[in-house]
């Protein structure tokens, strides 16, 4: 279902392991965002299949965050369309897109600093669950913050804040989960925990779109990777292939290596 822009992009079977034909859950057509003279996202045709765990990588300024913000509705596109689960997102406000089944964890932790951990989780939970208690317990357990449930969120470490926000985002029980740099600034142990968390949610059928710089992490979790550069899709495919691609190495990975 993906629409390759670049002839070099090879169509990959979604996941060979399950062998099922998966439906496209999110797709963009000719998506463009200009900020004055700068084209941050340039005529992008991009799609994610249901149940997929897609990573989005690219150098700084490649348009990753802009693309995410176009999907969440924080930004309105200059041109092009976004379809999610069969509906055109164009006219929908951000909160309506969340109702449609999208959820997002922002790049820097956006949590309610003055509330306790439990109260933080309460905010998204009260919208989705009638019986809050069991879901609360399960979520706290999943993000390993049970012992800090009554502590103010401002007292948490950076990694714990990241985990809390991921926890809040998943309590919406979304079909499509956007994670913008979920392991930025985390220790190796914490990164491993987040990878496990994402993996287990993915195993339960949640679709992910993850922006991440940490290639170790990307290698660990992702099936397919999309490389953005200067607002366009440079390359798309399985991680091994991407990492060995000359062009990608030169533009992106080379910098970090």
């Amino acid at each position, binding site marked *: 279902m993906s629409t390759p822009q670049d002839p070099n992009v090879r169509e990959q079977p979604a996941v060979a392991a399950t062998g099922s034909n998966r439906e496209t859950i999110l797709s963009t057509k000719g998506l463009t965002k200009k900020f004055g003279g700068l084209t941050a996202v340039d005529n992008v045709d991009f799609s994610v299949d249901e149940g997929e765990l897609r990573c989005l990588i690219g150098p700084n300024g490649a348009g990753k965050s802009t693309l995410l913000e176009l999907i*969440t509705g*924080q930004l309105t596109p200059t041109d092009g369309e976004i379809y999610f689960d069969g509906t055109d997102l164009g006219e929908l*406000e*951000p*909160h*309506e897109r*969340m*109702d449609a089944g999208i*959820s*997002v964890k*922002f790049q820097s932790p*956006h*949590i*309610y*600093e*003055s*509330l*306790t951990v439990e*109260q933080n989780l*309460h*905010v*998204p939970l*009260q*919208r989705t669950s009638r019986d809050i208690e069991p879901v609360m317990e399960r979520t706290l357990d999943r993000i390993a913050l049970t012992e800090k449930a009554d502590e103010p969120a401002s007292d948490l470490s950076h990694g714990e804040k990241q985990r809390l926000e991921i926890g*809040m985002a998943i309590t*919406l029980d979304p079909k499509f989960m956007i994670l913008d740099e979920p392991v930025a600034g985390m220790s190796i142990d914490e990164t491993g925990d987040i990878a496990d968390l994402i993996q287990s949610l993915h195993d339960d059928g949640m679709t992910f779109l993850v922006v991440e710089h940490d290639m170790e992490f990307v290698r660990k979790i992702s099936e397919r990777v999309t490389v953005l550069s200067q607002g366009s899709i440079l390359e798309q495919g399985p991680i091994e292939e991407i990492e060995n691609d000359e062009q990608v190495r030169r533009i992106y990975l080379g910098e970090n290596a």
Partner: protein
Amino acid sequence: MTELSLPSRFDGIAEKLNGPNTLGNSRAFWIAFAVGMFVMVAYPFARGSYAAGQTSLFLVYGLLALSLSLIWGYTGILSFGQVAFFGIAGYTYAIVSLNLGGVFGQTVALPIAIAVSTLSAFVLGYFMFYGGVQNVYVAILTLVVTLVLETFMAQTAGSEWAVGSVKLGGFNGIPGIRNFALGVEGASISLSGSGFYWFVLALLLGAYLGGRALVNSKYGYALVAIREDAERTAMFGYNVKRVKLAIFTFSGALAGLSGVLYSTWGNYMDPSVFTITFATIPIVWVTLGGRESLLGAIVGTIIIERLRLWFSVNASEFAIVFVGVILMTVVLVLPRGILPGIRQIYLFLNENGPRAAVDHGQTVIKARIREALQTVGIDASDPDTPSSSEVVRE
């Protein structure tokens, strides 16, 4: 059966009133609250009807403060417009009740006045929140609206400015508004002195308990979440604009009720309610008492107004200066306000004992004063203030 169901019903009520978004949820709090209420109810017996009548103004202002606490303390929208809705309701009540005349006119004027202030809040709120006005610009816009109303009402001295038989009267305002009354001719009650005091006290108690139920409900969580991070909250699927509009409208209604009571208390209505001084005073009440506490807002109002009265009798024109000094001191020592401050001290004492508390208090106060001297600007860098952190975010 009744014996069993009664306590459980009380539990249910208590559950609605208590919660993480109000400061006093303990048994001790409710006992203290009951004692306080008893004193308030008994006040007219001790001091007489005239004093009670004078004091009822503070309770009227308490409703206004409550409306500000809801939108500023809980939702993070700093509004100077509460006095605008207060004044609009007061003027409307005057115009309608005097035109229709009699106790029936007054009875009809009450819902009309509140409806007009509610509608005004809705219209202003709609254009602000759906127009994308945010943060400090809400404060500016609401202040401008208030000042425009002042300018407009002040120039209505001419006889051409009349609604029906009621002249708007410019600076002199509308005199002759009668004491609060409800009913129809022959079967009515008119309230003044102690009666008016108890009536306003009951309204204030109802508004306070209602406010508690509101902020501890699902809706209250949404309000607090919007205060803390509106963008994050929208990304949990909350319709932030609609929630803001709803609470702004509700606060407008509450301010309107306060304005009606004010006009019947003083028996007149003039443009001074739209001045910058009066627009700022609710901010002072709420800051002093504790922005994030409904009771704090009321307590702050009563303290400030009592002091203003005392100072204006004993120190005339310096009254506002003294009040300013008190406000500065409180903000330095207890930046979150009196009631949250008392609660913090109480919790600290319980945990660490009095000796440690005194030491801790000293270091904290010293640090605060040093901080304040360093930053010459007024509380611009105080991270505790939602309004200022909003500005920073902006």
